[in-house]
């Protein structure tokens, strides 16, 4: 397992969460201070492409089926409308978990 941006979440004493990808039935660990897409890339089990990691290109768009999360970076309105945001559709490069999550491809 490679290091994430802030080092491995568990090693750094961060609280971690389990993220389940419903489409593949695979799970990965994500630190509380880690963007979900970064953890997904590190784990190698994501079903979406990895693009700009900046909230701009939209390729990591998914739905959070279950669990609390925080949007910590602005998501381009081109790719996530206000209604979609209310419907828990996110760019996974912009959210951090506050619970174990179940995420799915849209």
């Amino acid at each position, binding site marked *: 397992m490679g290091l994430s*941006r802030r080092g491995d979440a568990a090693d750094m004493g961060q609280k971690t969460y389990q993220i389940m990808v419903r489409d593949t039935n695979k799970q990965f660990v994500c630190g509380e201070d880690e963007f979900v897409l970064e953890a997904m890339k590190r784990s190698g089990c994501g079903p979406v*492409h*990895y*693009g*700009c*990691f*900046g*909230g*701009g*290109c939209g*390729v990591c768009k998914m739905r959070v089926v279950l669990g609390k999360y925080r949007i910590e*970076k*602005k998501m*381009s*309105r*081109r*790719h996530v409308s206000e209604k979609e945001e209310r419907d828990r559709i996110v760019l996974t490069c912009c959210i951090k978990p506050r619970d174990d999550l179940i995420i799915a491809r849209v």
Partner: protein
Amino acid sequence: MGFKGTLRPGLVQLRVLDFDETLNFYKNILGLDEVCRTGDGRICLKGYDEFDHHSLTLRLADEAGLDFVAFKVGCPDELEKMKRDVEAFGYPVDTVEAESDQPGFGKRYGFTISTGHRFEIYSEVKLAEKGPMVKNPDIWTEPPRGMRAQRMDHFLLYGPNIAEAERFCKEVLGMFVPEVCNTPDGNRLAAWITSSNKPHDLAFVEYPQPGKIHHLGFYLQDWCDVGNAADWIALNHLKLDIGPTRHAITRGLSIYFWEPSGNRIEVYAGGYTAYPDNPQRVWDSDQLGRGLFYYSGEVVPSFLEIVT
């Protein structure tokens, strides 16, 4: 004046999602200088080796992407003639008054081309206060920062009907087309277009959605600086797309990555010297992998598919 029509792309306005990480990128990692801020909060920047007032304006918005690109024309008479030519080509033209939304810039004429992009033309712009030296000039006045970008260089635009856009650039903007890529049935897939000796001032790729930008390119001194840029990408955890590599198309030495708002940036050095009388280089679309990435010869899906 050696060029006919436009001199170069001189101004781009980009939409960004924040002014924290993103502005830090443009100033301290890419190495541009902040010139000024507008009354409505946009930020104007330029490369250390650029003479004109500014070349990049960042606008805070809900989505990343391109507002417009503007080309500098040699003189006011040429500008007025070109405006009439744009109208004769069939594009309605609007006027942006001098010193209105872009500090330092004279009157601009704007219009939308077939690919859905807003183009502007202008001839007058103030020199920057902090431009390159001209009297017994040193190579720079302050050590360049970060990736040491010298200037804005070019952009790649995605949109529909690039055949018309290419014809417009030739017939109205006075540009020529050193290199193209065609599909097996003979249609344009991509065109590299210039008004100068640079292999491209802009390029188009045929794409169903209008008004998209693939990347904005900045010029570096040489291959060593492309490597230096790669170090800055890694150090700052920017998302790399491709490179360092060489293009066979344009022959540029290159690296692509995304800035923190998700606009793709290229930093680029070298490239062949283009002349309008040279034969056009022609690529078949099944050879595009080698054309784009000469070393690997493979097209990377993210490179072709992700635009803002």
